[in-house]
């Protein structure tokens, strides 16, 4: 049959089109990470480890950051054998743990007598049922970025590390009043940049089922929006405006953002892509009764895949990555490692392009960092609910009170299940 021959030929062609990778002689450690091709610290870590560990090659599997959750869910369910998976957020890690994808590192930690003190307790967020299923290598806390030139132009004093939210609000309003083309501050569309500050007191959490404490922060943002001192949520959301470009445009005086933005900012200022020249860092403002310098943060870490065939090697890498040596490498790229010591802090403030003032340097060591959202059984669902109500409140579809009432009611239903 001509048809069959054609079909067979077509099939053979297809197969020949597919490329195969040949196995290497050296040991190759496969790590699944997001934005692996474009993230400076990943490249730096890989190079540093390969230099000090001959015979080991690190290969990243690059997944776009937006698709990370979906893609990784499929990969892990499909019995992927990559050795290490980078951990983007705690709810996802909990899901992986429950599905049996993670490997308990506790024995490794015990055997190596691994020093956990540098994590100042943050690593417990990666422990479930007493099993340490991942270790953090980056710890980003929320910090206030500000554009010094805009403060100078408006004649407003720079933020200090003990600001109250009222002082922050006044400054934002004053700067906008001085020049109406300048925004006093900028909130990205996330729930975290808007109201997560409530957890800085160490008492409130986002999973406790009571969200009355968020009202203060929603009111603050809406007042600023109404005064025109910050862009409205609706427009940022509709335009898909990315915060990096927004601050980089040079007409925003302040922006609360994760520490990771330091690296982006330095790179883009150096390349001339941003309209920002002089900038600084300050600790997030706090509410009355909360210690100055308290903030919230999140972890980025690494876990060993339960199906990895080289768990010893994987542990060796994670131990290096999350410890002092790896932390210095991470810090050298403008990121804040999870494991912090004096030596690491020195590296952080010494990188080129980092603001030279004392306030900025001091803000690197917050007095207290609460976890953005802790991992528990219903964290993922609660995040969904909060996110939905957040968008309704922020686009002014419902009042703050209604939104918070919905949050309380819906989360109670989830918790009650």
């Amino acid at each position, binding site marked *: 049959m001509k048809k069959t021959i054609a079909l067979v030929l077509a099939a053979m062609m297809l197969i020949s089109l597919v490329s195969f990778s040949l196995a290497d002689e050296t040991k190759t450690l496969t790590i699944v990470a997001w934005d692996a091709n474009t993230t400076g610290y990943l490249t730096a870590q890989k190079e540093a480890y390969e230099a000090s560990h001959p015979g080991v090659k690190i290969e990243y599997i690059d997944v776009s950051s937006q698709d990370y959750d979906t893609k990784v869910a499929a990969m892990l369910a499909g019995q992927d054998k990559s050795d290490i998976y980078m951990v983007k957020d705690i709810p996802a890690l909990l899901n992986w743990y429950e599905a049996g994808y993670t490997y308990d590192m506790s024995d490794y930690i015990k055997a190596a007598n691994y020093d956990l003190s540098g994590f100042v307790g943050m690593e417990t967020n990666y422990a479930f049922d007493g099993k340490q299923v991942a270790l953090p290598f980056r710890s980003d806390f929320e910090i206030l970025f500000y554009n010094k030139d805009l403060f100078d132009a408006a004649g407003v004093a720079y933020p200090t590390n003990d600001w109250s939210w009222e002082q922050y609000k006044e400054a934002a309003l004053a700067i906008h009043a001085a020049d109406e083309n300048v925004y006093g501050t900028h909130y990205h569309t996330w729930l975290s940049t808007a109201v997560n500050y409530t957890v800085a007191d160490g008492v409130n959490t986002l999973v406790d089922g009571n969200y009355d404490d968020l009202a203060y922060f929603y009111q603050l943002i809406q007042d600023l929006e109404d005064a025109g001192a910050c862009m409205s949520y609706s*427009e940022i*959301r509709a*335009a898909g405006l990315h915060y990096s470009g927004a601050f980089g445009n040079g007409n925003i005086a302040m922006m609360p953002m994760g520490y990771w933005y330091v690296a982006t900012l330095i790179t883009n200022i150096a390349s001339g892509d941003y309209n920002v020249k002089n900038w600084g860092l300050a600790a997030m403002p706090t509410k009355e009764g909360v210690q100055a310098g308290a903030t919230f943060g999140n972890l980025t870490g690494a876990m060993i895949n339960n199906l990895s065939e080289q768990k010893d090697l994987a542990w060796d890498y994670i131990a290096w990555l999350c410890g002092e040596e790896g932390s210095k490498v991470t810090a050298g790229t403008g990121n804040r490692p999870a494991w912090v010591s004096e030596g690491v802090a020195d590296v952080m403030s010494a990188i080129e392009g980092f603001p030279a003032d004392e306030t900025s340097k001091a803000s690197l060591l917050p007095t207290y960092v609460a976890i953005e959202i802790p991992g528990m059984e219903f964290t*993922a*669902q609660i995040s969904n609910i909060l996110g*939905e109500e957040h968008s*309704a409140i*922020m686009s002014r579809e419902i009042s703050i009170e209604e939104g918070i009432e919905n949050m309380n009611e819906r989360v109670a239903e989830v918790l009650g299940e």
Partner: protein
Amino acid sequence: MTAKPVPAGQRRKKYSMSRLERKNTLIAYSFLAPNFIGFAIFTLVPVILSVVMSFTEWKGGALSSMQWVGLDNYASIFKSVKVGQKMGELGFFGGLDYFFNKVDLGISLKNTVFYTAVTVPLSLVAAIVLALVLNKAVKGAVAFRAVLFFPYVASMVAICVCWNFMLMKNGPINQMLMSLGSTFNKSWTADGTMAFWAIVLVSVWRNMGYYMVIYLAALQGIPRELYEAATVDGANKWQQFWAITLPQLRPTTFFASIMLIIGCFKIYDTVYIMTEGGPGRATKMLVLYIYQEAFNNYHYGLASAIAMVLLVVVLLVTILQFRMEKRYANN
């Protein structure tokens, strides 16, 4: 779709023999095999697995770790206990009201059905009108057709970002509407009502060119003698449209509406990129809900159960359409 040449069909019925049928069956299977084997392995089996999955609890990992939970997932997505309780308190309609305004499944089902009910007729009418206009000897028809088909060719990600910008506060669309006397000036996707219409607008914009092409084709297939006879009888263009064009287009409309309904029920990209289901849950659609349960919460069983609800609704509508089509055809 009914076979046009009735005599041939009748003749074949008389000739039909079991031996011939057996041979025919074998030949038919040989025709089907190349496609069916691929289809069965890569689509049918996974779909059947997902039906099974809707009765299990599974967080991922090995397939053997699935646990049979019977109808639990369905009870959970319908919030049957809570809805039943509300029905007890507030009466039947009170319970329904709760279901469609508070329960995720109810809200996304309501949104999806409403979206489908609006988008399908709008797309069909737009497609028919465009096809009628471009069927005439209009100069540049080829160019117009190409332009109108363009939205279908473009990739969704870029297009949705563009549309979000078009529909912003002080954006071109709002400015146009305001010059016509509208007082609305808010970003569409940030407004509970307009976000829904933004999704409808983008969908119709994308669908109309696609179905216009199919209608164009169908229009050329209508025998010209029908119109000539009608003109002799003194019917005007409008009467001809109702008496000839529309009935002749019915099979196409049937095909187009089924594909459109299924497509609308499965809407995901547009919503995900433009509104993420927001603000609040104003544009939360079934597939977005499925996605959240599967990939945010790792509740694969629940996600499959929602998909089954979607499948049942779509199949019911499709069967209803088949019935109606048959009745029309018989008349």
